[in-house]
């Protein structure tokens, strides 16, 4: 199986999750309130009161054959709104 880690703005997390499901993934997990540093600078939680939020960390465990579909669904969103994605290998416990 593959483990996909996506880190992107909280504002777009719903959109990304929809894309993931549409691509065929059976599940995902989301952690909000993630801060960090990336190409677009530092992200803190200080603007949380404004509804802008910080980052979210999305984890998706998928079978190997779904990786391409999820990647294709998510990549344009990351390109448009910012955020990063990484893949590693995992097995069911």
């Amino acid at each position, binding site marked *: 199986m593959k483990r996909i880690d996506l880190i992107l703005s909280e504002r777009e997390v719903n959109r990304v999750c929809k894309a993931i499901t549409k691509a065929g993934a059976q599940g995902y997990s989301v952690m909000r309130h993630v801060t960090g540093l990336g190409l*677009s600078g530092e992200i803190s*939680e200080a603007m949380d009161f404004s509804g*802008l939020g910080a980052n979210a960390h999305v984890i998706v465990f998928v079978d190997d054959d779904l990786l391409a579909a999820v990647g*294709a669904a998510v*990549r*344009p*969103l990351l*390109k*448009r709104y910012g955020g990063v994605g990484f893949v590693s290998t995992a097995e069911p416990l």
Partner: protein
Amino acid sequence: MQSSLVLQNLLSAPVLFFFLGILGVLVGSDLEIPAPLPKLFSLYLLLAIGFKGGMELAHSGLGSQVLLTIGAAVAMSLLVPLTSFLVLRLRLDGANAAAIAASYGSISAVTFITAESFLNVLEVGFDGFMVAALALMESPAIVVGVVLAKLSAVPEESESGGEQDGNGGLRWREVLQEAFLNGSVYLLVGSLVIGWVVATFSPAGLEKMDPFTEKLFYGALCFFLLDMGIVAAQRLRDLQKAGAFLIGFSLLAPPLHALAGLLVSVLLGLSQGNTLLFMVLCASASYIAVPAAMRMTVPQANPSLYISTALGLTFPFNVVIGIPLYMVLTRQFIPVG
């Protein structure tokens, strides 16, 4: 007289707590108000200001001066982003210029609230319908900003995959949703309507809301401004990247927009209190509704630019110097009611 007004503002509890927050960051204190506590105070302030405004609107009614004032306010929120855009475009690309312009066309509810507190301390009256103006000025500037960004955009390569619409055009549904159904706009407008309904149909409920929406308000504002001070000071660092042009803009635009507001107020024959609030609406820039909307609809713009100008400079300027300054002008040009 004039310096006494500035001092009176500087030595008020809300502004002092704002300074305490700024100073904390500057001297390196680890004081922080962790999320989502600032959101609690922000939601509370919007709910309370809306409810009280609606309540007072029910008392004052919707006369022609009310409608004229609100109409003028909305007009200002459409004009200010256009003129701001022209100026900002001198140095910035279309997306960034449009996003910052939207921010200055829209308003800052907390600046408005601080001005109300200032008037309360001075015992200068003002009307509840100004809150309706506040509520209706938030959204139009967002729409203008998005349109400006699209018009000035270099046509992008068409995206593929993932997204529902690949036609590259304006996603009107999304834009209008961000502009009018944004959480803070929705709560403010909704509370305004509720305040109006309750005051009109079941006034017994007003008294029971009073300890929450009225009595607690001033203290909660102090607490929130403490956090705003921290956040504004953290934003100051981003200003290096913004450069001298944007710093100049964020300090000159407020008094200029306030002057435009003063002119309109004179034409409309507003009272002193309403004039100050009108000037503050024009002068203030949004760091709540607009950034949240721009992040989604104009993702090419750099958030740290529009947030740091509106929140890091314009907001402190208005709260600390702007409000008493505009009051001095108001007293100069508006006769006592």
